[in-house]
């Protein structure tokens, strides 16, 4: 086990709270009355069998889906509705289950796109590539290069991401999210489809991001070994309902969780 970043992040103040959220698509009830919270500085895992509603939950948090019921409180502000770019502005970044990169653009440009909101100069200064705007572009470029070094991908920075192998694409996507300097980072299956070595690398990056930058992380992952090692607390969803919530140890021994994963004899 690693040493936690903050003495006890599980006891820290609440960064995000989800209260009684329900979401349905026609007759399909993706989320039913789900409540949980994420503390500042912790790594919070969301797990559950396929179709449990994990990705729907992330989509609600970052504004892609509007829940029919319930409230989301982020940094003390409660809201019923939020657009994705407002979530981004508020400091929520994310990666996607199936890698959503700008395929025709280079790794560098993809990560630069993550700086969009950090750029303050108006379009017109940017156009002229003059004075303050140019200095700003240079400054952003420097930050992006730091991220590229951190993720150990300097050799691929000029390659269009569509040409990269899957594991590296996942890393570029993480880089783009980090470029936003988020307060809350949502990772949707960051290790799906990776081999053992790539998983170890990715785990290390996640821990480093959490430790060094103090970034709060919400993580969906199927590899139980990874989840148990990384996370401070775990929410378990099954068929859109929360069935358990607690530390890795609590959740591992929970009968409802074991039943959900292994099935129950009828």
């Amino acid at each position, binding site marked *: 086990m690693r040493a936690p970043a903050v003495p006890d992040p599980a006891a820290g103040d609440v960064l995000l709270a989800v209260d009684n959220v329900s979401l349905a698509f026609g007759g399909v009830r993706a989320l039913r009355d789900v409540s949980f919270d994420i503390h500042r500085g912790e790594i919070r895992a969301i797990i559950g069998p396929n179709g449990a509603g994990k990705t729907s939950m992330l989509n609600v948090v970052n504004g*892609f889906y509007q829940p029919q019921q319930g409230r989301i409180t982020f940094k003390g502000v409660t809201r019923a509705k939020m657009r994705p770019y407002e979530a*981004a*502005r508020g400091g929520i*970044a994310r990666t*996607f289950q199936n890698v959503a990169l*700008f395929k*025709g*653009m280079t790794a560098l440009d993809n990560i630069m796109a993550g700086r969009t909101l950090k750029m303050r100069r108006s379009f017109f200064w*940017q156009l002229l*590539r003059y004075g303050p705007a140019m200095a700003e572009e240079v400054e952003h470029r420097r930050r992006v290069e730091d991220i590229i070094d951190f993720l150990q991908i300097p050799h691929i920075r000029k390659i269009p991401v569509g040409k990269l192998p899957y594991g590296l694409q996942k890393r570029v996507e993480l880089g783009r999210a980090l470029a936003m300097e988020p307060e809350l980072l949502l990772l949707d299956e960051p290790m799906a489809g990776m081999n053992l070595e790539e998983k170890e690398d990715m785990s290390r990056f996640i821990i480093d991001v959490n430790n060094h930058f103090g970034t709060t992380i919400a993580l969906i992952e199927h590899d139980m070994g990874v989840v148990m090692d990384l996370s401070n607390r775990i929410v378990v969803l099954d068929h859109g309902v929360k069935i358990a919530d607690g530390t890795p140890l609590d959740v591992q021994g929970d009968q409802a969780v074991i039943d959900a994963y292994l099935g129950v004899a009828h």
Partner: protein
Amino acid sequence: MLGPVLETLIGGLLTGVLYSLVALGFVLIFKASGVFNFAQGVMVLFAALSLARLSEVMPFVLALALSALIMVALAYAIEFLVLRRLVNQEGIILFMATLGIAYFLDGFGQSVWGSDIYKIRLGLPQNPIFILESVFPGGLLIDPAELVAAVICAVMVAALAVFFQVTRVGRALRAVADDHQAAQSVGIPLNHIWLMVWAVSGIVALVAGMIWGAKLGVQFSLAQVALKALPVLILGGFTSIPGAIVGGLIIGAGEKLAEVLLAPVLVRWFDLAGGGIENWFAYVLALLFLLVRPQGLFGERIIERI
């Protein structure tokens, strides 16, 4: 022989600039949504109709400003009523939506402005100019109206190239075109971007409609002329502003030269009628390009990991 060929070349290039301008309207929307905006031609017609009818009742400059406002309002309506509801849909869905917009706008234009042939009077000089009279007997004939039109287009094209080619705007457009979700997740406001490109495309359509309308009269064939932009785009690359410019010039000059140089060959050697080359030349050239270089002269390389 050289004199007439040169004259044809110049005439072709001047027409080509007009093609470039129309093509530019397509490029802007393609850059920000990855789809061919089928409605662009009808937008040219609609803008020209607005300008022609409004200038009947008010000074030309006022009519032009009002038409520009109408095109921006149209962009608002399209974004609010159509595009906003289609976020995260496949490209083909967006394309079908532009098809619907095209037919709606076609009919709506008639309902509002009428369906006769209208005139736009730009007050351009009518008498042809002759240049280089010392080099060629009789000099080279140039239509001053085309020259003025070409200058207007060139200024417009240059302004847009600067506007969209640099840093953040360009990057945001490409991001939106590549992946709606990902673009939203890094905080690019999709709706604003779409609104901006449709509004600018509307203004481009207005300028194109004004010049073509002054040349041919404002009538329904105007929407068809705009489809000449398709081979221009295939040649230049759908996402490239310089591509639209160069593609337009090549097509404009190429089809005129083909008419003059190729027709006699067809008549003499193959005993064919030899006419109408101007109508198909651009499309055959585009077809050849699709076989050899599908991304066009300046387009982004098509990248797919299989």
